[in-house]
């Protein structure tokens, strides 16, 4: 392996026709470059999309009421109904393995009509009535002050947590926000904290323009009694909400006197299922990248194999001489194989280096122009690069195999006869 003479010979052979060697190497170089760029681009897209999910509890479903479509227990079809606060406890009791059941209410904000006032400033924002646990389900964190707590709920405190976007809209730069009052539809609430989005370096600014009110205070202030607008339900880790969803819906159907077969009375959105769809989309994309890249790589490897065949043909006489001088056929085979592997690895390494530089360049560009929607930090893992290297060694071996075989098939006497 580390025989100086052998390596000297490999270099002599490969450098004896520079242009041809470079052209041949280009095939493998190109294959591995495309493989790496495709994988990195896929990863960039994946990172970009997944960023929108960052901090969101993806094992979550949302559930709301619609109108019934079947008569049941003396109640007519077409009936509108609401979830009640007691349903939350009922769900928690009936369906084990749920981590968080958050009842939620919201004020309908009409666009263009301001519903929140601070001094002379005003704006139109979405206002939610929520339990403190909502912070674990949405992708937000407390930037300043505090978030809602259970005392707020119990004492029906009229306090709010506002998004950082609202602070920018309504307040002066550097103005103290905590302890100020915002008037929401005629009711004053004290600001106790601000929050920020975990994933807000995209164009997701609207998410930081929401207001969170303690659920109980919200119900009282805006006359919701014990109605619940919708629920956000997260399963415990290790349990899929998609599997628990049926139980949850059946529980509320029963408590709200909805016909068990009424499919349309309760609407829901299974975030986990959607997330999994995206996940499998990326898996598919990764496979496409791998397959396309590998196919291009294969054509490069075939190129190498082809050239090695030509080299063997050209060196038929030389091989004959060597065998007449007593070289072991195995040694000749090894020589051809090593030439092929060497060429493959060198050109592949060069491809990997260029691919990495390319990705580095794209990342630098992305950093300098600021965040781009749905694309973030394209990269390939060390594992992928290692796998690519192993593939290269194997394909070099494969590329050299047929030529090496044909080299030792040459009988010295025939080889010497070729003038």
């Amino acid at each position, binding site marked *: 392996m580390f025989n100086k003479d052998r390596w000297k010979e490999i270099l*002599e052979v490969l450098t004896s026709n520079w242009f041809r060697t470079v052209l041949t190497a280009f095939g493998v170089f190109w294959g591995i470059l495309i493989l790496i760029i495709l994988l990195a681009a896929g990863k960039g897209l994946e990172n970009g999309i997944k960023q929108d999910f960052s901090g969101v509890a993806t094992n979550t479903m949302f559930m709301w009421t619609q109108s019934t479509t079947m008569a049941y227990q003396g109640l007519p079809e077409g009936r509108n109904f609401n979830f009640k606060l007691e349903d939350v406890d009922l769900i928690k009791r009936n369906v084990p393995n749920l981590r968080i059941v958050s009842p939620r209410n919201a004020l309908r904000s009409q666009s263009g009509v301001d519903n929140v006032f601070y001094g002379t400033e005003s704006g139109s924002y979405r206002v939610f009535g929520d339990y403190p646990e909502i912070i674990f389900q949405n992708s937000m964190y407390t930037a300043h002050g505090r978030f809602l707590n259970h005392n707020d709920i119990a004492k029906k405190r009229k306090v709010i947590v506002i998004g950082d976007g609202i602070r920018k809209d309504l307040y002066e730069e550097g103005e103290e926000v905590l302890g100020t009052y915002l008037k929401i539809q005629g009711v004053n609430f004290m600001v106790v904290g601000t929050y920020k989005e975990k994933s807000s370096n995209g164009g997701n600014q609207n998410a930081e323009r929401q207001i969170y009110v303690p659920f109980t205070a919200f119900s009282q202030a805006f006359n919701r009694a014990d109605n619940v607008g919708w629920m956000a339900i997260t399963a415990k880790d290790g349990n899929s909400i998609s599997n628990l969803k049926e139980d949850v819906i059946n529980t509320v159907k029963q408590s709200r006197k909805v016909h068990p077969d009424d499919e349309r009375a309760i609407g829901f959105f299974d975030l986990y299922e959607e997330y999994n769809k995206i996940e499998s989309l990326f898996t598919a994309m990764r496979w496409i990248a791998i397959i396309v890249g590998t196919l291009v790589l294969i054509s490069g490897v075939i190129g190498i194999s082809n050239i090695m065949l030509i080299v063997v043909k050209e060196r038929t006489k030389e091989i004959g001489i*060597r065998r007449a001088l007593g070289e072991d*056929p195995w040694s000749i085979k090894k020589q051809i194989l090593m030439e092929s592997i060497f060429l493959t690895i060198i050109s592949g390494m060069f491809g990997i280096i260029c691919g990495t530089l390319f990705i580095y360049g794209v990342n630098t560009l992305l950093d300098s122009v600021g965040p781009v929607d749905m694309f973030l930090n394209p990269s390939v893992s060390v594992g992928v690069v290692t796998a690519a290297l192993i593939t290269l060694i194997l394909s070099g071996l494969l590329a050299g195999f047929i030529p090496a075989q044909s080299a030792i098939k040459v009988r010295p006497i025939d080889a010497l006869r070729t003038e």
Partner: protein
Amino acid sequence: MIEIKDLHKSYKMGSNSLHVLKGINFSVEEGELVAIMGSSGSGKSTLLNILGMLDGADSGEYNLDNVPIKDLNETKAAQYRNKFLGFVFQSFNLINYKSAVENVALPLYYQKVNRKVRQEKALKYLEQVGLREWATHLPSELSGGQKQRVAIARAMAAEPKVLLADEPTGALDSKTSYEVMDLIQKINDAGNTILVVTHEEDIAHMCKRIVHLKDGVIVEDKKIEQVRAEQYV
């Protein structure tokens, strides 16, 4: 040194086969210098190839230094060639991207002699053929006679039992031919066994024994008075 009994060889040419060697009986003692003569098609090259283990015989016996040469696989044949035989070809057959000294060192490399010893030995043999100062030159920078002398040095480097020369002067003018023959005679003087295939009378007469082949059989085998090549150089 070499013993051959009833050697037959035929080549298949499509449907009909060509019987090239039709029962050769022949032996060579150590230290002999034998010329194998014959017109083209007489089977002399085939005989040399079989002697050189480059080709196998169909039937018959072949003993080289009391080792029966039979049913060799390529690996074994390569080993025997390396150990027993040195080849000199009409077209020199030097490896053109290797310098003279590397060419000479090649058989030693296959014997897995270490690098330093290899280099020393190769230089010693180049010195013997008078080309020491050409050691680092590529074959393309050498004249025909010089190339053949490098080839002879290469053949000698492995210290073989028998040196086989296939038309060693075939590609050379007569003056150079005599120089090469002079070298071959001197190597023979040192006790080496040498077989030379040639169709040139004057070259044949510089050997000690002439074997005439015709149509696959030996028609004449005689010892002769050796003509020294020195006087023509």
